């Protein structure tokens, strides 16, 4: 058994959880909801084991580094963070319905990482630029932030669904609007703080590797654009009373900013972060 086997199983477990959550959405059977959560927990456990095993395997190959160093590993970690964050939210706020959006996101991330041609899944040694203690701090802070934003966008979808639900029966199984609104706001804040920490750890790392903490490279600039976007969202909420559907839409649009920063920049623009693209 190796890590790619475990991570492959994870992909299918998230797929199964996604189906169960959608079924739960449609039929509202508590048993289905419970089964969906159990499968999600299993998926997260498999994924955690897979990431841990991959870490260990890298030591067996003789170079040893945390599995956070290329596109494949970062997407797997992104998916892991979404799963974990979703489960914590469900456990704390009983927002199980959110799983119908969070589990597919976690699944899509895993499927993308596992099946896209051109993404290397091999465990490779680290090039000199990546050999730094800042690597783990930078990647972990960024992806916790990204996962927060992904869950905020999922909550935004739930909010809009609640508002526009065709039938009363679907709407009645969704959390109240003010609770959703509050949760979106909280997850946005959570993501914003971690994104700030991610930008800062990146700046400190850049300074120790290249002697400039900020060089307006496309990745840096896009992370700042994303930061501006969420800063605007939070200011609009505090001072202009934006809430409800508006904030839900901002959370959804924000995720596109995040995805472009994370993914689009690597493939469409060139810059210092080129090692993220393979």
């Amino acid at each position, binding site marked *: 058994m190796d890590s790619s086997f475990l991570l492959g199983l994870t992909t299918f477990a998230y797929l199964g959880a996604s189906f169960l959550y959608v079924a739960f959405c449609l039929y509202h059977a508590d048993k289905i909801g419970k089964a969906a959560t159990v499968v999600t927990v299993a998926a997260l456990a498999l994924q955690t084991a897979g990431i841990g095993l991959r870490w260990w395997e890298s030591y067996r190959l003789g170079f040893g580094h945390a599995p956070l160093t290329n596109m494949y590993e970062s997407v797997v970690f992104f998916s892991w963070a979404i799963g974990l964050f979703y489960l914590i939210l469900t456990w704390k706020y009983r927002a199980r319905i959110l799983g119908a959006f969070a589990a597919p996101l976690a699944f899509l991330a895993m499927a993308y990482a596992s099946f896209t041609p051109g993404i290397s899944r091999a465990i490779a040694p680290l090039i000199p630029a990546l050999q730094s203690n800042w690597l783990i701090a930078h990647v972990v802070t960024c992806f916790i932030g990204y996962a927060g934003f992904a869950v905020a966008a999922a909550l935004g979808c739930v909010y809009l669904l609640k508002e526009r639900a065709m039938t009363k029966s679907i709407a009645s199984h969704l959390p109240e609007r003010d609770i959703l609104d509050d949760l979106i706001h909280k997850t946005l804040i959570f993501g914003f703080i971690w994104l700030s920490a991610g930008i800062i750890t990146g700046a400190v790392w850049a300074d*120790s590797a290249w*002697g400039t903490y900020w060089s307006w490279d496309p990745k840096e600039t896009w992370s700042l654009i994303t930061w501006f976007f969420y800063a605007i969202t939070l200011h609009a909420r505090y001072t202009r009373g934006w809430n409800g559907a508006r904030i839900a839409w901002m959370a959804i649009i924000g995720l596109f900013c995040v995805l472009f920063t994370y993914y689009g920049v690597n493939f469409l623009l060139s810059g210092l972060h080129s090692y993220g693209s393979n």
Partner: protein
Amino acid sequence: MRNIRQLFTSVRLAIFLLAALAVTSIIGTIIPQHQTYEWYAERYSPHLATFFQVLDIPAMYGSWWFTGLLALLAINLIACSLERLPKVLALIQADPAATPALRLEKMPLQARWPQVGNAALPSLKKLLVARGFTAANDAETLFIAAKGAWSRLGAYIVHLSILVIFAGALIGQYYGFKGSVMLPEGKSTDVVFLNQSHQAKNLGFTVRCDLFAIEYYDNGMPKEYLSRLTVLENGTPVVSRDIEVNKPLRHNGITFYQASYQPFQDFIIELAKKSGPRHAFTVPYQKQEEWSEEGLAFGVISAEALGQRLERLKLWLKIGAAEAVTLNLAAGEEGELGPYKIRARQLYATGLQVAKDPGVPLVYLGCGLLIFGLYTAFFQAHRRLFVILPPTSSGDIRLIGATNKNRLGFARDFATLRAEIDNTLKG
């Protein structure tokens, strides 16, 4: 004047500036920066290239209009903060016991219980003290629990942190420099070349590259780039250290980073008598070099490279008038020839990034403040709870609460406290 003041103290302007910065920032991520006019003319068109030059697009993040937007944001931050800070400070310093009755009436969370006789009062007071309340007057008719008043400063700490980061960036801009130098092994320099202007900048000391080496993984990927640098002041070595990517050398506030390298067609040949010290010679490909004290002549006949990486080479060596002999060596391997030890490798130049930035500590201080401020602004709330006990046995017992953030969470805590008081009063 009043209009200008209103404009600069408005959050609307802040939102506009943030949006303008976000949108214009995209330009520089799509149009490559710091290229020549000819490059833009060829890639786009001469017309566009001229247009770009007028608007400073090739260096847009340092352009007058982009720095102008940043400056406006700074002014806006200062104006907004100064405008609101006095009120906030007054709120923080306000004695909760002096809250006017009218304001208490208007607070969002309210509960009341009809007086149930004095029997339950001692246990109620005990509960309140256990929940962090203190009596606000001698008659013990008002109990208050307030916390996190200072958290109202959170947003202002965030604003301050951004100004601190700006200040650090300005200091770096005016008192620092960024340059680079390509330094062949064995050579030294006391100047570097500035990144923007390409002018020579005097370091005030000398730096020498003693060695450059690349380590490889088994699969051929580079594992480490390493330069051994020696800093000399007035010709005397003061520091000697190996630098790697992510492990720079700092001297007199100037930091040297391993950034690149350049292989040469030349070789470094090290010769030593069996127990003697090594002598290093820089030898161009297929040229003759001499160690005259020993009467030696030698050179490189041929070399095998894998990509740019030297694998093996063939040397010739002539001792005195004797016939020249040849020797095959792997790069870096030590061979013996008569009484001599011989070793050869490729000559490299190390590419150093050289930076001085006295603004960095301030920038990092700003980053720390930013995180602390965000935490305070979002996760700490100013919560106030009041319990009013009637002075006589008639009149209601009241619980009143207000918070400036996280109303749902506060409402939950309020409900818990309310249930506790309920139970206590029921005995």
